[in-house]
């Protein structure tokens, strides 16, 4: 039973990231189909996602091997350690591999360089966004000289409240399940519910990091400038609403599903069910966060195109 739980948990944790990669590609295709060089950027994105899928399956294989070798016993130390390891692999260790690939899609739709150049004008390999090809034709670049912070894009309430909702939600469910499974040991329970919170916080931090690169408002007059300013404000409102929706959705899902499942099971939930709940819940939020990040990036690219049109005509 314990081995089955761990095998099942590891599989459940893998499905989420794999589904996220698929959703990432589909969202990109729908949102960026009208941008220049779509086919070329799509091919590069597919290559990156394919490599990340291989990393994900290798993580799964490593976990399966570890589970088989350790053969954890009920309540034993290896049991708790394995659960922590299973979640750590896909909620912490996987992200450094995933972030560059996921941001590659962001870079492809927001970065418009024709390759990076060094100070002496020679072309240098690579770029922080993964060597994305040019998605525009203008060789003249304009930028404002005003620094931006997250606070420029989100009000303090918009920044703090979603995190608070997510943390309180995870904490409440964790406390509730602690009461039910207090014999399982604190490491096991703490790891189980930290997983959802870690996933949410990491996804949130990633998205905020991408969203900081928002276009600088231009001082200008005329219809194009007004259109640009309105589009910029609308994009900011979209990001705030999306962050709120993401966090509230996570808290709602965790409350309703976990609470109803526990009550329906008479307050005694199997470890496998809890594991699947945590893995699926966290993965769903990761998928949604990734999709929202892509949509936000494409909207920024459209703003950049508008800004270039403004700078060319002013």
């Amino acid at each position, binding site marked *: 039973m314990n081995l089955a739980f761990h095998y099942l948990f590891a599989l459940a944790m893998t499905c989420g990231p794999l589904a996220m990669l698929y959703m990432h590609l589909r969202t990109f295709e729908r949102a960026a189909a009208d941008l220049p060089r779509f086919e070329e950027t799509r091919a590069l994105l597919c290559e990156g996602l394919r490599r990340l899928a291989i990393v994900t399956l290798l993580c799964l294989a490593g976990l399966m091997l570890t589970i088989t070798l350790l053969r954890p016993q009920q309540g034993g130390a290896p049991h708790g350690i394995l659960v922590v390891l299973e979640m750590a692999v896909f909620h912490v260790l996987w992200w450094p591999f995933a972030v560059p690939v996921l941001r590659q899609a962001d870079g492809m739709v927001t*970065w*418009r*360089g024709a390759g990076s*150049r*060094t100070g002496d*004008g020679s072309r240098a390999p690579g770029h922080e966004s993964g060597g994305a090809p040019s998605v525009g034709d203008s060789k*003249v670049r304009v*930028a404002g*000289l005003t620094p931006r912070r997250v606070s420029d894009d989100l009000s303090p309430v918009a920044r703090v409240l979603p995190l608070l909702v997510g943390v309180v939600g995870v904490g409440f469910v964790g406390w509730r399940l602690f009461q039910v499974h207090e014999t399982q040991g604190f490491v096991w329970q703490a790891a189980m519910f930290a997983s959802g919170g870690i996933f949410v916080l990491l996804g949130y931090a990633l998205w905020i990091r991408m969203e900081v690169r928002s276009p600088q408002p231009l001082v200008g007059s005329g219809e194009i400038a007004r259109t640009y300013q309105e589009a910029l404000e609308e994009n900011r409102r979209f990001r705030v609403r999306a962050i709120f929706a993401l966090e509230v959705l996570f808290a709602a899902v965790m409350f309703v599903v976990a609470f109803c499942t526990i009550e329906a099971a008479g307050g005694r939930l199997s470890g496998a069910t809890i594991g699947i709940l945590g893995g699926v819940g966290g993965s769903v939020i990761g998928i949604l966060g990734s999709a929202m990040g892509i949509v936000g990036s494409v909207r920024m690219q459209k703003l950049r195109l508008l800004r270039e049109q403004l700078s060319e005509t002013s």
Partner: protein
Amino acid sequence: MIQIDLESTVPLEEQLRQAVREAIARGEVLPGQELPSSRQLAADLGIHWNTVARAYRSMRDDGLLVIGRGRGVLVRAREGSPEDPELRERVIAKMRDAVTEARLGGIDLDAIGGIFQRHLESWQEEATS
């Protein structure tokens, strides 16, 4: 606002330096004001962040900027006086170089004067707008 041309023969780092120096000289950014981070400016311009970082570092070495960990990139407060003889000597030397280069290129003195005049007028227009 700064502008760079990817197809120019002038290296990007030099274009950045010139653009930021001119922005400071025109008063578009004031002493003590913070500039965008190298990564932010690089993302906005679509160039490598290291190019921006090198430009910032060279301006720090020239005494134009202050780069502090956790404090960002700040425009250094102006020191010295416009009447400083060393400053005037440096300006005169640069003007002499510019005139020499223009004459070697075949531009006559009246045209050189016209170029300077138009440049000064554009600065005055921006200062009063």
